[in-house]
C-alpha cells in the first residue's frame, strides 16, 4: 500500500465525514429554528401542493433568477445543470454494475462538462466586470469559482490530455466503500482533481454552498399563504400568550 493511497483514503474518509456531519447539523439547525411569522413573498401559493410546485420551479428553472437577470440565469443554469449531469455520470465510479440510466447519460457528460465550465467562466466574468458584483465579492467568492473551475479543468484534462486508469479509480473508490483498500493511480492530474474535490467537500458545510440546503428552508418560498385561515404560532411565541386575556 503506497503512502499516497493511504493519504487519499484517509482524506476521503475525513472529507466525507465532515460533509455529512456538517450538513446534517446545519439541516437540523434550520429545521429546528421556528419561523414565527408568515412571510411568503406574495403572490404565493395558497395550498401545500402549490408550494411544492413553486419550489420545483425554483430548483429546476431558477424561476426567481430568471425574473431578475437573464445573464446570471443562463450562466448559473448552465453551470448547475452541467455539474449535475457530470456528477450523475460520475456515479459509474461508485456503482457496480453501473446503473442503466447512468450508462445512458454517459455521452452527454462531455457537453455537460463544457457547459459547466462555460457557465463558471461567465459568472466569473460578471464578478470581475460588473462593478456592482465586484463590490460585493470577497476573496472567497472568487476562490470558490476558481476551485470549481479547477476541478472541471482537471477532469477535462483527463478526458482529452492525460488519461488515467479509470478502472483503477473505480476500484480505489469501491475499496473505500467496502473497507478493502485498493491502490490509487498515481497520476498527478487525477490526484489534483481528487484533492480539490475533497477540499470542496470539506468547505461545503462552512461556506455559501449552504445555499443548496438553504433553498429548501427559505420561509419566503416554502410557506403557504394562508395566515387568515390557519393560525400560525411558534413555540416561543406561544409562551408569551400564557398571561393574556
Amino acid at each position, binding site marked *: 500500500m503506497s503512502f499516497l493511497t493511504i493519504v487519499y483514503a484517509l482524506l476521503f474518509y475525513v472529507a466525507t465525514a465532515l460533509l455529512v456531519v456538517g450538513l446534517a447539523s446545519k439541516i437540523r439547525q434550520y429545521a429546528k429554528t421556528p419561523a414565527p411569522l408568515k412571510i411568503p413573498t406574495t*403572490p404565493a401559493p395558497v395550498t401545500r401542493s402549490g408550494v411544492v410546485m413553486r419550489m420545483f420551479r425554483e430548483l429546476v428553472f431558477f424561476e426567481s433568477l430568471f425574473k431578475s437577470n437573464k445573464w446570471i440565469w443562463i450562466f448559473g443554469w448552465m453551470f448547475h445543470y452541467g455539474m449535475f449531469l457530470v456528477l450523475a455520470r460520475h456515479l459509474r465510479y461508485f456503482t457496480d454494475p453501473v446503473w442503466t440510466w447512468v450508462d445512458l447519460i454517459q455521452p452527454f457528460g462531455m457537453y455537460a462538462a463544457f457547459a459547466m465550465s462555460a457557465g463558471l467562466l461567465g459568472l466569473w466574468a460578471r464578478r470581475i466586470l460588473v462593478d456592482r458584483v465586484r463590490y460585493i465579492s470577497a476573496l472567497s467568492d472568487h476562490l470558490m469559482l476558481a476551485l470549481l473551475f479547477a476541478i472541471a479543468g482537471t477532469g477535462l484534462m483527463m478526458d482529452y490530455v492525460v488519461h488515467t486508469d479509470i478502472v483503477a479509480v473505480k476500484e480505489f473508490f469501491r475499496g473505500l466503500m467496502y473497507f478493502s483498500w485498493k491502490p490509487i493511480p498515481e497520476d498527478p492530474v487525477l490526484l489534483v482533481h481528487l484533492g480539490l474535490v475533497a477540499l470542496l467537500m470539506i468547505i461545503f458545510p462552512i461556506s455559501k454552498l449552504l445555499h443548496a440546503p438553504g433553498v429548501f428552508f427559505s420561509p419566503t418560498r416554502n410557506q403557504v399563504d394562508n395566515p387568515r385561515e390557519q393560525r400560525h404560532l411558534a413555540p416561543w411565541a406561544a409562551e408569551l400568550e400564557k398571561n*393574556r386575556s
Partner: protein
Amino acid sequence: MADFDIPELKEFPVVPHIQEGTMAHSKPFVSKEQFQEPLGFPGELVDNWQEVAYDKMEELTGKYRSLAVFLDSCVKCGACTDKCHYYLGTSDPKNMPVARQDLFRKVYRRRFTFAGKYFPKLVGAVDLTEDVLNDWYSYFHQCSQCRRCSVYCPYGIDTAEISMAAREVMDEIGVGQKYCNEIIAKVYKIGNNLGLPQPALADTLEGLEEDIEDDTGVTVRLPLDVKGADVLVVTPSADFFAEPHVDGLMGYAKVFHEAGISWTLSSHASEAANFGMFIGSYENMRKVSLRIREAALDLGVKRIIFGECGHAWRVAYSFLNTLAGPFDFLDPKYPVPMHIMEFTHDLIQRDALTLDKSANDDMVLTYHDSCNVARASRMGPKPGGQFVLPREVIKASCNHFYDMPQDTIHEATFCCGGGGGLLTDDLMELRVKGALPRMEALKHVVETHGVTHMAAICAICKSQFAKVLPYYGFQMDSIVSVHQLVSNAIVLGNKQ
C-alpha cells in the same frame, strides 16, 4: 428647494454605477430615553454594547429561521444588486440589498461561523466596531422593508428581515430610532400614531359628517366607540385629517352607509399602522396588535375591517391571527381581518353600489401598488388578488385608467421611498432619491397617456408622495386615495 441634488428623471431607467459613500451621512435622529423605556429598551448606549449585541444576534438567529437561513445562503450572485429603489436613486453601493445584508452578515460570520472566526480576511468578516455600528445605523435606516429584493433573489432572501433584526439589535443596545419609537410610545399612551385623544377624534369625525352632509345633503355617520356595531374599522390615523387620506375615510363611511351595515371606529385601537414591525420587535408588534383584539372584544363586533394602509395590511393580513388571534369570537363567515377593498369590491360585484364614473372625469388615473400590500399580503381568495381588487374598484369608479410600465407594478412595484419607518423629515434626502424609480414610471404614463393622478392605498405612500411629488415637478395633490374615487363616484341613497 433642497440642499441635495434631486435626481434627474430619465427617459429609460438606467442602473447607475456605484459611488461609494454618497449616503453615509444619512441618519435619522436617535431616540431619547423617554421613547426607549416604554418599549422596554435601554435609554442610551449600554456599556458592554458589543457583548449585548452579539447575544441578541445569537438569540435572533435561534428564533427566526429566516435570519438563520438567509445569513448562510447568499451566494453573492448579484441578482438583487439593481433591484432596490434606494440604490437606483442614490448609487450608494451599500444600498444594494446584498451589501446591506452584508453589513450584518460580516459580523455574524466573524462571531458565529468557522470561516469568519479563523479566516476573517478571506470571507470579509469583521467585528462589530463603532464604525460598523455607524454603518448599521445609517444603512439599516435606508431600507423601507419593501421586499422587492426578495422577489428577485433565487432563495427569496428578504433584506427586510435582516433590517428588522439589525434594528432590534440596535434597540437592544440603546441606539433606537426616534421616529419609530416615539410613535410606538404614543400608541401605548393614547392609541394612535398621531397622539389624537378620544375627544379630539370624536370632534374630527363629527366635522367630517358635517362635510359630507354639506356636500351631498345626506347624513352619513362616522361612528366612534359604538358597542354592538357589526364591524370594527381600523384605519391609519392619518385618515382622520391629512389630505388625501381623509377623503378615503369619507369614502369608507359612504360605502358602509350604502351597504346598510353598522360599523364603528375605536378610540382604543385608532391606529392600523403597527410600527412594531419596522423595528423588528415581535413583542412590541404583538402589544400594538392586542389593542385591536381588546377593542373588538370590548365593542362586541362581528367583523374587523382594515382601512387603506400598506404595512398595516401586512401586519393585519399576515400576522394579526398569529399575534392576537384566535378570533373565534367573530363571525366565521368572514375572513379576519378583511380589507376595505375586499368589502367594497364585493359590494360592487353584487351590484349593491351605484357608481357614477363621470364624477371622476377630471382625472386620468394610474395606480401605485404599495410594496407591502403587493409582496407581503393578499386580497380575496386568489393569489394576486391584491393587484386585481384595487384596480377593479378604481375602474368601477372612473373612466380613465392606465397602468404604469409592467416592471414597476404588481410584484415588481417600487416602494414610494418612505416606507418601513423612514417617513420622517430627517430623512428627506433619502425619501426624495428613493422615489426616483416610481417617479420615472409615473412620468412615462403622464407623457404617453396624459395621466393626471395616481391612486394608492397606503397612508405612508400618500404622505410620502404628497411631499416628494413637487421635487420632481408634479402637483402635490396628484396623489389620491382609492376610496376617494369611490367617494366621488358613489350615488348615495340609491339602493336603499
